[in-house]
């Protein structure tokens, strides 16, 4: 597969990021966890948003003492 113009959702320093293939190549190999690859920036951002919402829900549940 050619990943040249694709986008990645990664986790780095406990944060989710959307990053281009080119920019990903510049990161040190052990500095991030690659979660998912997408054709378009929009798809990647939508996944990033979904993950952020889940994190927010988890945080809210923890604050309210509810089980995960």
């Amino acid at each position, binding site marked *: *597969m050619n990943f040249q113009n694709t986008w990645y959702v990664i986790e780095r320093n406990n944060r989710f990021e959307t990053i281009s293939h080119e920019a990903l190549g510049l990161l040190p190999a052990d*500095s991030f966890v690659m*979660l998912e*690859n997408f054709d378009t920036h929009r798809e990647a951002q939508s996944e990033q948003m*979904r993950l952020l919402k*889940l994190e927010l829900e988890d945080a809210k549940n923890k604050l309210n003492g509810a089980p995960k």
Partner: protein
Amino acid sequence: MPINLSAKNDFHGVWPDVLVPLHADLSIDEARLSSHLRNLSAKGVEKFLLFGHAGEGASFSAEEKLSALAHVIASGIEAKDLLLGVYASSFSDAAHLIRKAYEQGVRRFLLSAPLFYAHTSHGALLDFYEQVISRVNLNDWQLFVHQLGSTSHAGDLPEVTLTELRKSHPTIFVGIVDQDKHVNHTVDLIRSFGSEIPIASCHEPNLSILKPSVCISALANVVPNILRHIIANDLPVNGSQMPGMKVVKPDDRVVELMNVIGEYPPIAAMKLMLAQHHRQGDWEHVRPPQAKLSKEGREALMKAFNTFNLLANE
């Protein structure tokens, strides 16, 4: 377009035994399957076993497999990079699936001994494969025999059958995939056939002993780079190397991960890991007769997987 097939040269490296994501109704989630292959590709794995042992291959119909195959190929995965699991007790079903998948560009097929009847004779097993090959009636395709060993009552093709098959169809029968976890089982196959055809082991802890050039790996769904390093026999992937500290080698991580899975149903356990990694709960579905995880087992496994701490470059 003709596809140049050379099993000896081309069947190498890590072939993940791809886990198959399902919808809640237990149909194949084709979009997520394509996305999973794409993610593995982005991590450097380019060849895949679809509908193998971990891919619950015996649990899907030919139509389901062909539809998923079409989706995967349309998403950009090349058909030449796929090995398709064909499991059938009927030679006509097996030949039908192979021919249809061939039309989509797939050239490599994995076929075990027929799954229904036990204690079949050497001659009868040979006849089964002869029937499949004659009904496929094509030249440029490759058959890999799946030796299920102790993982299935279907068991193995006897050595004499493999020898006969190899003699009659040297350009078609070009490799063996060994599902058995006992290293001696694989060693015996390597002794008998390893000089002629590739033998791929599926049991990851055996890889550091066997040092093969190819493996079929279910764990590669979760930790593809660890498997790549084991097969390449190169440096540890764990970044936390400190003076005086033990360096964690890739095969140590495999053992750790196998310990995490422990006695849990392995396919459900690995799917849970992917569900946790991608935060996509649907990954947890398995198709009967695969066993699900109990509630307690699921919680314990999630904790163990957190402790395993999947690293960035694994």
